[in-house]
C-alpha cells in the first residue's frame, strides 16, 4: 500500500487497474475525462483503452466486452448517459458476464455542463446498483470492487462520482495493480442476448427478482452504514456526507448512503431510532423519497420540506445553514461574510489565436441578421461574440438549424459545430437536413482535437487514445456522402478567403457546409509550432478599436492605442482586421 496525492479521477483510474480491468472506453466530458486520460497515458497499462465517438458507442462496446467475459468500464459525464440510455435500460435485462461498470459523473452546480441531472435516477429507472462515493478514497475503493459486484449479480453497476469527487484531490491509499488473466470468449445464448419479446419478458422478471438480495448485499458490503449518536439524525450521501461529517453536531446520528437501491428495512430501523431526521444530498431527493416511504411518524426534513434546495451543490457552510434551519445541532457556526468587492468579471474566453473567434467574427460580418444555433465545445464561448443563439445538447446545432428552416424562419440560419461534436451526434442531423431539403449553412469548426475537455484525440486527429497512428476521418467525404453539394474547406486564419466562402454560401439555397479547419492553438503550442509575434506600430494606429472589438486577449488598449502582449501566438488575423495597416510582424532589433 502506498499513499499518493491524487485527483479523484486518477484515483478512480488506479482502482480500475487494481481490479485488472480489461477494457476502458468512453467519451470525454467534464468532470469524467481524466479517468481515460490517466489510463491512456500510463505506459505500463495492460488494459485496452479507447476514446469512442460517443457515449452510446462506448457503452455498447464495453457491454460486449463484458459479454465476452472480460471486465470493462465506460466513462462519461451525466448528460452522456442520456445518449447511452438506450442500451443502459436493456443491458439491465440482458445482464453481464465480466464485470461491467458505467461511470457517469454528475455535475451539481453545472460547473461545466448544460444541466444538473442526477444519474442515481437512471440507476433506479434501470434497476441496477448505483455506487455514490463520499470521499476520494471511497471512490477508489468502490470502483475497484464494483467489477466483482457486477459479476456477482450479473448486472451493470452505475458508478456516480460528482465534480467534487472527480476534480478534488486528497491523499489516497493505493493497492497493487493487477494483470488480467481472462481471455475473451462469447458464449452464444439467444435467450440472454437477443431481446425479442418472448425473451425480454423473462429477463425483466429475472431483473426484478435480483432486487431484494442486491439491497441486502449493499448493506453487507458496508456501502450503507450508520452511527447512532443521539435522538436526531442526518441521512446523507455522496460528497455531501463529507460536509455533514465536518459540521454536524456530535450528538447527531449519521447514516451514509453509498449505494442504491437502499434496503427499506434497514432504513426504517435507523429512522425509527430517532425523533427527527434530515436528509442532505445533492440534486434529486433520491434518499429523501426512500426515507419518506419508511419514516412512519418520524418527521423528515429535506428538499420536499423546503429546507434544502433541489439545485446547485452543497458546501460545509450551506449544510450548516440547512441543519440550523431545521433545528439540528452543528459543531461549527459560520459567521456571515461581507459580499465580495464589485469588480469587472473575468469569464473564461477563447484563447489568443483561437480559430473559433475568427470564424465567428466572419460569420457575424457576413450574416449580420443571421440566427446562429451552436453546439457544445470551446466555441460555446462564442456567446460573448453574439454568434451563439442556441445550445441544448451535443449535436443539436444542425438539427435546431434545420428545425428553424422547417418552421419557415426567413433569416439566414448559420450553425456551428466542432469536429468531435459533429462525429458524436452531428452527422445524423446533417443527413436529415440534406434529405429533407433544409435551407441552412453549417460551419464545422474543425480544430482536429476534442479541446474543451482537455485535448483528447478523436477520429479527425489521426491518432488513437494511446497515440497509435490511425487514418483520419474525412469530414469532407462524410458531408458529401450525406448529399451536401456545397462543401468547402478553408482556414479562418485566411480571413479574407473565409469571408468569401461564407458569402458564396449565403447566395445559395440548400445545405451548405463550410469546414473551418485550423488546428487548436494549444495543440500547436504543444507541438512547438512557432509563428512569431505581431506588433502594433504606434505611429500608425489611429485608435479605432477595430482589433480591440475582435476580442483577442493578446490585444490591449494602452493610452487609447492598441497594443499586443506576449500572449500573441501569431495567427495574423488582426493584421487583416486593421483598416490602416498598423499591425505587422514583430521584428527583433
Amino acid at each position, binding site marked *: 500500500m502506498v*499513499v*499518493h*496525492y491524487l*485527483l479523484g479521477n486518477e484515483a478512480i483510474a488506479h482502482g480500475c487497474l487494481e481490479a485488472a480491468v480489461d477494457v476502458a472506453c468512453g467519451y470525454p466530458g*467534464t*468532470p469524467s475525462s*481524466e479517468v481515460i486520460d490517466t489510463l491512456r497515458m500510463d505506459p505500463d497499462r495492460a488494459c485496452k483503452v479507447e476514446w469512442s465517438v460517443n457515449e452510446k458507442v462506448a457503452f455498447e462496446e464495453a457491454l460486449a466486452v463484458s459479454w465476452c467475459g472480460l471486465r470493462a468500464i465506460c466513462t462519461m459525464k451525466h448528460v452522456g448517459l442520456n445518449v447511452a440510455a438506450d442500451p443502459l435500460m436493456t443491458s439491465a435485462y440482458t445482464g453481464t458476464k465480466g464485470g461491467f461498470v458505467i461511470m457517469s459523473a454528475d455535475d451539481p452546480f453545472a*460547473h*461545466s455542463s448544460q444541466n444538473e441531472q442526477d444519474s442515481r435516477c437512471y440507476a433506479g429507472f434501470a434497476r441496477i446498483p448505483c455506487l455514490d462515493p463520499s470521499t476520494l478514497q471511497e471512490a477508489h475503493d468502490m470502483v475497484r470492487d464494483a467489477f466483482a459486484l457486477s459479476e456477482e449479480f450479473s448486472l451493470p453497476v452505475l458508478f456516480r462520482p460528482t465534480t*467534487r469527487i472527480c*476534480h*478534488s*484531490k*486528497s*491523499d489516497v491509499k493505493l493497492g497493487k495493480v493487477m494483470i488480467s488473466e481472462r481471455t475473451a470468449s462469447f458464449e452464444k445464448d439467444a435467450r440472454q442476448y437477443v431481446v425479442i419479446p418472448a425473451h425480454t419478458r423473462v429477463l425483466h422478471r429475472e431483473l426484478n427478482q435480483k432486487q431484494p438480495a442486491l439491497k441486502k448485499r449493499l448493506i453487507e458490503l458496508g456501502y450503507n452504514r450508520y452511527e447512532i449518536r443521539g435522538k436526531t439524525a442526518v441521512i446523507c450521501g455522496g*460528497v455531501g456526507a*463529507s*460536509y455533514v*461529517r*465536518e459540521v454536524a453536531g456530535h450528538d447527531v446520528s449519521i447514516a451514509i448512503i453509498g449505494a442504491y437501491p437502499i434496503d427499506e428495512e434497514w432504513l426504517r430501523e435507523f429512522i425509527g431510532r430517532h425523533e427527527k431526521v434530515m436528509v442532505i444530498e445533492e440534486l434529486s431527493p433520491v434518499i429523501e423519497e426512500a426515507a419518506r416511504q419508511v419514516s412512519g411518524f418520524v418527521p423528515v426534513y429535506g428538499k420536499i420540506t423546503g429546507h434544502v434546495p433541489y439545485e446547485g451543490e452543497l*458546501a*460545509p*457552510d450551506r449544510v*450548516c445553514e440547512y441543519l440550523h434551519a431545521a433545528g439540528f445541532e452543528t459543531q461549527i457556526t*459560520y*459567521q*456571515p*461574510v*461581507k*459580499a*465580495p*468587492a464589485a*469588480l*469587472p*468579471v*473575468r*469569464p*473564461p*474566453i*477563447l*484563447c489568443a489565436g483561437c480559430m473559433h473567434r475568427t470564424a465567428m467574427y466572419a460569420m457575424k460580418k457576413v450574416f449580420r441578421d443571421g440566427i446562429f444555433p451552436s453546439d457544445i465545445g*470551446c466555441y*460555446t*464561448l462564442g456567446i*460573448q461574440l453574439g454568434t451563439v443563439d442556441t445550445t441544448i445538447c451535443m449535436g443539436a446545432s444542425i438539427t435546431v438549424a434545420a428545425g428553424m428552416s422547417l418552421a419557415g424562419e426567413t433569416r439566414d440560419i448559420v450553425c456551428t459545430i466542432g469536429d468531435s461534436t459533429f462525429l458524436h451526434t452531428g452527422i445524423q442531423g446533417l443527413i436529415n437536413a440534406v434529405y429533407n431539403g433544409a435551407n441552412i449553412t453549417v460551419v464545422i469548426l474543425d480544430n482536429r482535437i476534442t479541446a*474543451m*475537455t*482537455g485535448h483528447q484525440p478523436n477520429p479527425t486527429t489521426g491518432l488513437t487514445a494511446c497515440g497509435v497512428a490511425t487514418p483520419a476521418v474525412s469530414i469532407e467525404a462524410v458531408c458529401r456522402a450525406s448529399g451536401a453539394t456545397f462543401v468547402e474547406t478553408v482556414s479562418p486564419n485566411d480571413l479574407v478567403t473565409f469571408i468569401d466562402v461564407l458569402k458564396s454560401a449565403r447566395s445559395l439555397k440548400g445545405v451548405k457546409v463550410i469546414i473551418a479547419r485550423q488546428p487548436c492553438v494549444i495543440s500547436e503550442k504543444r507541438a512547438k509550432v512557432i509563428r512569431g509575434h505581431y506588433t502594433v506600430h504606434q505611429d500608425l494606429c489611429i485608435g479605432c478599436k477595430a482589433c*480591440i*472589438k475582435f*476580442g*483577442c*486577449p493578446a*490585444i*490591449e*488598449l494602452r493610452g487609447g492605442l492598441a497594443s499586443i502582449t506576449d500572449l500573441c501566438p501569431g495567427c495574423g488575423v488582426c493584421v487583416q482586421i486593421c483598416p490602416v495597416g498598423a499591425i505587422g510582424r514583430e521584428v527583433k532589433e
Partner: protein
Amino acid sequence: MSFDVMIVGIGGQGTILTSNILGKACVIEGIPVRGAETHGMAQRGGSVESQIRIGQEFGPLIAPGTADLLLSFDLMEAVRAAHWLKPEGYIYSGREYVVPTSVFMQDLPAPTEQMLLEMLGDRPVKVISSREIAEEAGNVLTQNIVMLGAASPVIPLKKESLLEAIRDTVPPKTIDLNLKAFNMGIEAGKK
C-alpha cells in the same frame, strides 16, 4: 482544524501546480489533505481557484470567511477572493495585474493597481513583485513558485517537505530554476 489555503489566479498561471506541491508536501509529512480545483472550460483565461485544506479529513471545500491564507497570482483576483479569508487571515499576492479582456471590449471602468491595493484593506497583506523576481530567477513562468516561497513561512509545512514536493512536481529540467524561484520568494516575503 485544518489550515485552509485559497490559491487564486487566471487560467494558465499555475494554481493547480501550486496546490499539487502543497498536497504532495502533506503526503510527505503524513498529514491528511483535501483539495478542490477548477477544471474544464473555466480554465480558458478566466478566474480560477484551487482550495487546499492541510490537515483536513472531510470535504475539500472551504467555507467563505474561514480561509487561513489567500495566495494570489494577480491583484484583481486577490481582491475578488478576499472574502474567503477569516479576519486575521494572510494575503500574499503577486503585483501582477492583468486587465480582463472584457474591460477593453466593452469599455468598462477598471480599477487601478492603487485602488486594488486599497480594496484589500487592513489585513496582513504582502504584495510581492513576482514578475521581476521570477525573471531574475530565470523564467517569468515561475511566479507561482515565487509566491509559494514568499508565503511558505506561514504554511504549517516544513521547508524540506515543500522543496521535495517541488522536485517531485515540476518538469525535471526546471527543478533548479524552480528551487531558486522558491528561495528568492522566501527572501522577498521577509521584506
